[in-house]
């Protein structure tokens, strides 16, 4: 084992050697320096490996032949080994990345860089507080030197502010150190810990000074303008290293010094948590308003520092899991933030919008996506598991306020990162300049990305829960990424086969409830994928993300633990986000989808956290047995699921997201994905039905939400001009019915709910697929630009006809099954008014359904559509398969409803409905699906044959052969009533269409942005102001911490 002292020795030795042997070439010096850093990495990682294997004990390294307190000593423990390894590893990659940038400044730059890394190593390892001060100063000086490798005034200004600020902080630290020494007579940290300085008033001041210096090193908001400037102003290659390596060291300094301030749970823990929370929320809030990429990264970095500080302050709550949480957050930040900074260095786009150029090289987009999702804490990255563990522990210990802080801060971060990513994926790319790929700059980033994925896997395997997660679907996604260069047909086949095989294997393990949803997800998925054969070319990036969504969907079905469920949920969210953003004008809608989804996911996370209180093992069954705060737990879970089902108030993302998505994506996200939210609601309601608490108020509220969603969704749909948006609003309405029906919580209610779930899947998939295929043919979404397509697309017309009859609930098709059950359920339950609102919404559905079929298929054919063909056969196959499903479900509803009734009997008494053959009897009424269908069909066929005979000689007319008050129509456009079709109805119901919810969220968004815009003015750019911030921060903190105690 190489002693860690050789890290110092090697760096200094080689540094002097390069200085002395000045004649050596620059490149040779550089390579020598890199080799030295490599050696440092080797030493620390050797220690890390030894600790990992488990036969190594922490070792003190003494210097100068004395023992402390006389001499300086270093400690190499597992934490030190890990942190130094990380610092050196990042340093090594950074060295490669910056190789030529250093070279331009001469060989001394290599030396300074080496010394910089060495000083960080010592800062991590040292157990002597004065030594700590010295090496902090060395690292600061080295940093100030290295900032200058970026040319231009900005870097110089930033460096000056940095060095002034760090000097002041060091001065404070030094004063603190000398006081501490004065009172205890030792400089050794372990000695200081044993001295219990903070128990005395005067010692308290020493502790205060030391701690405040350590905190200020972490760049707490708002006394951190200098830190932001350095991140933004210095070379991005170096900013990365400063932002993660220095930050890691600073974090560990704080960690070490916190021991001096007191034991776990002391006052300083609380202050740290408070400062961390302010920093985390504050800097992420300001990030929201930021337009420039570099500075945004700076805000994000500081936010992450705040999070680390917060976590450290919460160590009381986290207990043994502190290290796991910190490791997860830290390692994600290390890899992702470094990579992000380096990526920013390569792309060289200034504003966020300019990042649209990144997609000229799709691989870079993949890198950026990885970093964004890792930073926000999506699976499978380490931060996901860390965040999970943190929330679970906080909830268990009652730290609900802190959960809120963490989730709000993370949400603010999600806002700007996803907006940025949206610009990159879909922003307007009108910029002339391009960016180059240099291999020595790319390689470190690729290594980081690989490390990120692997670290995620390792992190998951570290815990028992994580080991239960099924990574096979995720692996399949990566395989699809790898074969993305293949043509679309091959990938489609592979994807379908993969899904089919997976479904075959998991099929036996599913109970009936899960089977229904899994069939919707998997069979529906396969059917919608078949439509993909209609696409030509490569369809780059489609299949990995589509399968990612399905992987998430099947993940939530298969989940046994809450972690697995949440894992699947987040995968599904990520996949669907990518699917949605593929649409042409999807950027803002994908963003709002993602933000609602993230917020919803956080609500679910918090809900699971509360549900987990007092439970031995977080299996999914804890939802059936929530022991504390059940209203909060179920409420949060339901809110989370309601964001996915787009219930009123949380629905504004849906119309755009589903409306602008690609033709075969809309059915995926509408007919299939929305059911994930329903599945969640079903699980929560099963739990509520089994709960010992009285949760009827929650179910009642849910019922009202469902009914109002149905009403507003349907009214919204009536006034859409865009066919896909119309269907999207219709989905909102239909999901409102489903939520309402499940909230009834009786057997009939749930039967209604499941009937609607199946129905909505069938007909919404049919409608979205058909409309999507038509959009592909006619090239517009606007219904008023279509018309008369029945002559060109009779098959599509028939599909839509059956679809709308089924959706409208007119007998004899399956929609009526739902309506009939619905009436019985609401009357049985006594929810009359909610029920009436929902049924009134059903009446309104006629309006938009008729509009859909009339304005697309009937009326006047437009001139430019004269040569359009029938929709693609690859769309017709899934459409007609689903139509068969509708017809079977219409004519023989008992085939599905009987087993469903038996399944629901597990949860609710089986007394709502009984069957005699095809006759259904409830307490109130009766009805037969097959009989009605037969009667209607017979009358219909007879009437049709008679009329056909009587009009056998009919002369076929063309489109303008209509009565037009003696005139001839001028043009199809002026003869087709489609635009603003329900003008009269609008005059009557306009108060219901006022977009209050949209206004509310716009107002919220404005509020956040305005606040951020106002607060960030404190960063005036003036170095002196930043000094003032530091001093004021110290003074305020002094009053908070010590205040009048002296």
């Amino acid at each position, binding site marked *: 084992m190489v002693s860690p002292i050789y890290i110092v020795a090697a760096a200094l030795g080689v540094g002097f050697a390069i200085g002395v042997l000045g004649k050596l070439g620059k490149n040779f010096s550089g390579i020598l320096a890199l080799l030295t850093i490599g050696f440092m990495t080797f030493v620390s990682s050797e220690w890390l490996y030894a600790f990992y294997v488990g036969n190594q004990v922490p070792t003190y390294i003494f210097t100068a032949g004395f023992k402390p307190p006389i001499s300086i000593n270093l400690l190499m423990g597992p934490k030190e080994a890990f942190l130094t390894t990380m610092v050196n590893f990042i340093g090594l990659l950074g060295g490669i990345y910056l190789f030529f940038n250093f070279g331009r400044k001469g060989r001394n730059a290599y030396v300074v860089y080496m010394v910089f890394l060495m000083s960080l190593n010592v800062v991590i390892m040292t157990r002597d507080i004065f030594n700590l001060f010295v090496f902090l100063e060395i690292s600061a000086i080295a940093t100030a030197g290295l900032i200058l490798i970026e040319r231009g005034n900005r870097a110089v200004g930033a460096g000056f502010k940095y060095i002034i600020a760090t000097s002041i902080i060091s001065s404070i630290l030094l004063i603190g150190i000398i006081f501490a020494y004065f009172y205890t007579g030792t400089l050794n940290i372990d000695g200081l810990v044993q001295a219990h300085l903070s128990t005395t008033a005067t010692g308290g001041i020493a502790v205060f000074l030391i701690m405040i210096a350590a905190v200020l090193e972490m760049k707490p908001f708002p006394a951190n303008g200098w830190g932001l400037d350095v991140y933004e102003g210095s070379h991005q290659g170096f900013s990365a290293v400063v932002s993660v390596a220095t930050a890691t060291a600073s974090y560990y300094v704080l960690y070490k010094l916190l021991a001096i301030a007191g034991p776990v749970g002391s006052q300083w823990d609380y202050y740290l948590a408070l400062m961390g929370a302010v920093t985390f929320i504050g800097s992420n809030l300001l990030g929201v308003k930021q337009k420039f990429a570099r500075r945004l990264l700076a805000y994000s970095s500081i936010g992450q520092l705040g999070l680390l500080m917060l976590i450290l302050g919460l160590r009381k709550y986290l207990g043994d899991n502190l290290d796991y949480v910190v490791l997860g957050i830290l390692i994600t930040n290390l890899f992702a933030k470094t990579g992000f900074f380096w990526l920013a260095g390569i792309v060289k786009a200034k504003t966020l919008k300019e990042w649209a150029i990144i997609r000229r090289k799709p691989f870079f987009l993949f890198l950026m996506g990885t970093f964004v999702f890792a930073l926000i804490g999506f699976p499978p990255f380490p931060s996901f598991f860390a965040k999970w563990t943190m929330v679970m522990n906080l909830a268990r210990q009652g730290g609900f306020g802190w959960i809120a802080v963490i989730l709000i801060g993370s949400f603010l971060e999600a806002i700007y990162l996803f907006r940025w990513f949206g610009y990159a994926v879909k922003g307007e790319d009108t910029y002339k300049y391009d960016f180059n790929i240099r291999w020595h700059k790319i390689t470190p980033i690729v290594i980081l990305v690989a490390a990120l994925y692997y670290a995620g896997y390792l992190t998951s395997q570290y815990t028992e829960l994580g080991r239960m997660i099924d990574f096979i679907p995720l692996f399949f996604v990566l395989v699809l990424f790898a074969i993305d260069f293949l043509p679309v047909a091959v990938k489609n086949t592979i994807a379908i086969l993969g899904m089919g095989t997976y479904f075959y294997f998991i099929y036996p393990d599913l109970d009936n409830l899960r089977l229904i949803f899994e069939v919707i997800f998997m069979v529906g998925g396969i059917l919608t994928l078949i439509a993909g054969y209609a696409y030509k070319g490569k369809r780059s990036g489609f299949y990995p993300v589509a399968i990612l969504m399905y992987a998430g969907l099947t993940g939530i079905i298969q989940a046994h633990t809450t972690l697995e469920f949440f894992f699947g949920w987040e995968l599904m969210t990520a996949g669907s986000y990518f699917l949605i953003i593929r649409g042409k004008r999807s950027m803002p809608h994908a963003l709002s989808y993602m933000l609602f989804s993230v917020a919803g996911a956080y609500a679910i996370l918090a809900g699971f956290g509360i549900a987990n209180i007092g439970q031995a093992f977080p299996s999914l069954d804890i939802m059936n047995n929530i022991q504390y705060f059940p209203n909060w737990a179920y409420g949060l879970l339901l809110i989370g699921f309601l964001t996915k089902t787009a219930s009123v108030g949380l629905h504004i993302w849906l119309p755009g997201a589903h409306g602008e998505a690609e033709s075969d994506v809309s059915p995926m996200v509408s007919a299939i994905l929305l059911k994930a939210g329903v599945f969640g609601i079903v699980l929560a309601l099963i739990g509520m039905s089994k709960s010992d608490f009285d949760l009827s108020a929650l179910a009642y509220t849910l019922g009202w939400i469902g009914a109002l969603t149905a009403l507003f969704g349907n009214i919204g749909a009536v006034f859409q001009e865009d066919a896909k948006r119309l269907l999207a609003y219709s989905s909102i309405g239909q999901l409102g019915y489903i939520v309402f029906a499940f909230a009834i919580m009786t057997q009939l209610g749930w039967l209604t709910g499941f009937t609607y779930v199946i129905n909505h899947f069938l007909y919404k998939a049919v409608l979205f697929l058909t409309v999507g295929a038509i959009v592909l043919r006619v090239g517009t979404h606007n219904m008023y630009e279509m018309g008369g397509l029945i002559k060109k697309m009779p098959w599509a017309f028939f599909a839509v006809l059956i679809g709308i009859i089924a959706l409208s609930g007119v007998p004899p098709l399956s929609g009526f099954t739902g309506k009939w059950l619905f*009436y019985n359920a609401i009357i049985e339950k006594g929810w009359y008014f909610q029920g009436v609102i929902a049924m009134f919404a059903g009446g309104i559905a006629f*309006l938009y359904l*008729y*509009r859909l079929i009339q304005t697309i298929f009937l009326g006047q054919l437009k001139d430019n559509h004269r040569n359009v063909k029938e929709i693609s056969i690859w769309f017709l196959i899934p459409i007609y398969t689903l139509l068969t499903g509708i017809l079977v479900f219409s004519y023989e509803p008992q085939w599905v409803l009987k087993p469903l009734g038996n399944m629901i009997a597990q949860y609710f008494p089986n007394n709502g409905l009984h069957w005699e053959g095809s006759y259904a009897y409830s307490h109130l009424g009766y009805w037969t699906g097959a009989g009605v269908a037969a009667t209607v069909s017979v009358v219909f066929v007879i009437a049709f044959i008679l009329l056909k005979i009587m*009009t056998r000689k009919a002369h076929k007319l063309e489109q303008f052969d209509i009565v037009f008050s003696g005139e001839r129509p001028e043009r199809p456009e002026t003869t087709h009533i489609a635009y603003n079709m329900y003008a009269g109805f609008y005059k009557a119901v306009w108060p219901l269409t006022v977009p209050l919810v949209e206004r509310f969220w716009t107002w919220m968004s404005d509020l956040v942005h305005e606040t951020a815009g106002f607060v960030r003015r404190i960063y005036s750019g003036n170095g002196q102001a930043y000094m003032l911030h530091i001093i004021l921060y110290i003074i305020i903190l002094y009053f908070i911490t010590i205040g009048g105690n002296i």
Partner: protein
Amino acid sequence: MSIYAKLAYTLLGLFIVLNWGMLMSATFRKIVARVAGRHGIPFYQPWIDLIKNAGVRTTLSHGFMFYLGPVFRFTGAVGMFLFMPALFGSDMWSNFSFQGDLILLLYFQSFGMLGMAIGAGDGGHPHSTIGISRGLAQHAAIELPMILGVISLAIQYHTLSLNEIIAAQQGGFQHWTIFTNPIAGITLLLAALGAMGHSPFNLVKAPNEIPIGPPTEYHGTYLGVLMSSGAILHVIEAALFMNLLFGGATNWLEYIVKTFLIYFYSVFVGVVFPRFKIEQSVVWFFKIPLALGILAILIYSF
């Protein structure tokens, strides 16, 4: 009773209802004429019109759905007849009411309307679409008091079966719903005004603004089918409210008298009141009928 006998009785019932409907529409026009001080059409005019329409030589077709419009309409009307018991307490005249309850009827109303709308749309005439858009808007508005009233009745009688609702009203007029549950009864009667489609709720077929709206392109045989469906529907709509509110009918005479009175209640309102614009008619249903409907349920929900 054998299924054939039942079928025969059902067809006979349909025939009666069709002719009664034609006679009622003739009487309606006669009444309108007499209110205006005219002599009016002969009472047999609808039959002549029907024959003439069947004898029109030119037949035109806008497309396949154009055919299906009248077929849907006719099926809707006949279906409504089939799924409702014609006479109460008679096995012969109970039609196919064993196949479904009140909810089926409520939703089957829309079958013909929706199909007709699609068929008319295939004609490509803008005025059809305008008429339909008005009709659908008005239908949606009528739905609200209608559902409220029906639910109030369902709560009152604890059933959704039309047969049982009629059965509960037997034994004298004091048992009729209109007397036992007057608020729901008035709500439904107000909704009935809209459902019957006479003035003031007949903007859907504004004759000279949008030449009679949806069926503007229909002629000859098509028009004949539509007219006969309309005749059936007039009776059936009245019969539905008769069954819900006025104790149903146990013989054809009672049936004819009651449907006549209910139908002519809407006719007389129509003769007196001028036409509503569509937003006025929609808003009208959201005022008093809605308030009454809510009251009708509130009474039973405590």
